[in-house]
């Protein structure tokens, strides 16, 4: 297991060296999107419209932050469960997305997309919303403001702690339950 300090956006060479279990501290820009934003984003792509941010090399963080109290750039901001974005993720990886950040298992279609398009799935600690918020220095809504917590935000993160859950070589970090 290696530890990396990476700066967004990411390229193929960087993604290819990552292995399940590696620790990755992210800095730079990441974009938030969860259920409703993904639906709207993919509908926009269906109509031939440009996405609200450049997907090439991009990182999407599955989060719907709580409102920023006065003096804070953002409220609590831990990951939401990723499987709900599985229906949309392969298409976004095909368009250049390099990493998604969330919690919980991905389906086989997403894992295949990681291998095919050189992508990675990173996990952050679920329920550590206050702790993770301190690694986010700036946040601004860039699209779908009417979705409230589900709007797309551009975040600036500094040493945001993640683990490589699924790499582009078929690696899986989550434990397999010991059951008959």
């Amino acid at each position, binding site marked *: 297991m290696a530890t990396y300090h990476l700066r967004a956006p990411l390229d193929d060479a960087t993604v290819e060296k990552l292995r399940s279990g590696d620790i990755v501290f992210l800095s730079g820009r990441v974009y938030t999107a969860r259920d409703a934003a993904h639906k709207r984003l993919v509908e926009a792509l269906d109509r031939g419209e440009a996405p609200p941010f450049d997907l090439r090399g991009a990182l999407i963080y599955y989060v719907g932050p709580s409102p920023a109290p006065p003096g804070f750039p953002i409220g609590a901001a831990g990951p939401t469960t990723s499987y709900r974005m599985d229906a949309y993720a392969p298409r976004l990886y095909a368009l250049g997305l390099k990493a998604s950040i969330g919690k*919980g298992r991905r389906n086989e279609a997403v894992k295949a997309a990681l291998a095919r398009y050189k992508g990675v799935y990173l996990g952050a600690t679920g329920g550590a919303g*206050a702790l993770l918020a301190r690694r986010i220095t700036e946040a601004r809504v860039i699209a779908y403001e009417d979705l409230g917590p589900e709007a797309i935000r551009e975040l600036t993160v500094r040493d945001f702690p993640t683990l490589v859950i699924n790499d582009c070589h078929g690696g899986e970090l989550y434990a397999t339950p010991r*059951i008959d």
Partner: protein
Amino acid sequence: MKTIPASAVENAVAAMCVTANRELPADVRAALEKALAAESAPAGREVLRQLLENADMARETGLPLCQDCGLAVFFVTVGEDVRLEGGSLGQAITDGMVRGYAEGSLRKSVCDPFTRHNTGNNAPAVIHYDLVPGDTLAIRMMAKGGGAENMSRVTMLAPADGWPGIKDFVVRRVAEAGPNPCPPVIVGVGIGGTFELAAINAKKALFRPLDDRHADPAVAALEDELLTAINGLGIGPMGLGGDTTCLAVKLRVAPCHLASLPLAVNIQCHSARHREVQF
């Protein structure tokens, strides 16, 4: 007859919604500390350490423990001799919840199931009432996050399935949920009753202190058996592997129809945000 001002209920509910979201309950903190001391997996220990640090950070900054501040679920025990003055009980609870979520910078997470439009104020809450003799009023609130709630299930077993069937369903449910509901989880299990009562009992069970013992020693033994089986899955904190998959299993049992064995499994995340107020 006891008269309680509606404004007092509203104020108490507003405060409890904020506190529930910012302060880890003492029994949950103690359980996480105990788990950290016992956990053998380094990755699991790191997750538990982060969760305790997160609780400290939330208390220091006033940020919520989790960005998912939950759908507000209330269990209200109302004495028959209690009368509210200046408003209805349900409205006072709703108004207090809406105010607490607004003033506490808590996330509003309630939407229309078809359009998915956010209602904008976290209303409506889900409120369950139990009418009892006397003049007590107790309001219990849970900030129930979507991730753990999504992993919950209700099933109608056959009486022939018995305890082995119950145990198999509960353990498999936690196994299939894996990392999704933010383990180490707390598992509320409703056994018996009807389709809806089993689910309500499973959720009520989640309010019990984590370190309590069921009043019936036979049921307490079943809780121990389930806890051991679930922790034997090796899912570990956040699904990264380890000894701590579950902090506690709580059963709530009710008589059921001759033909039925209703079973509900309500999964709760590691932060188990809840509070209680009495009047």
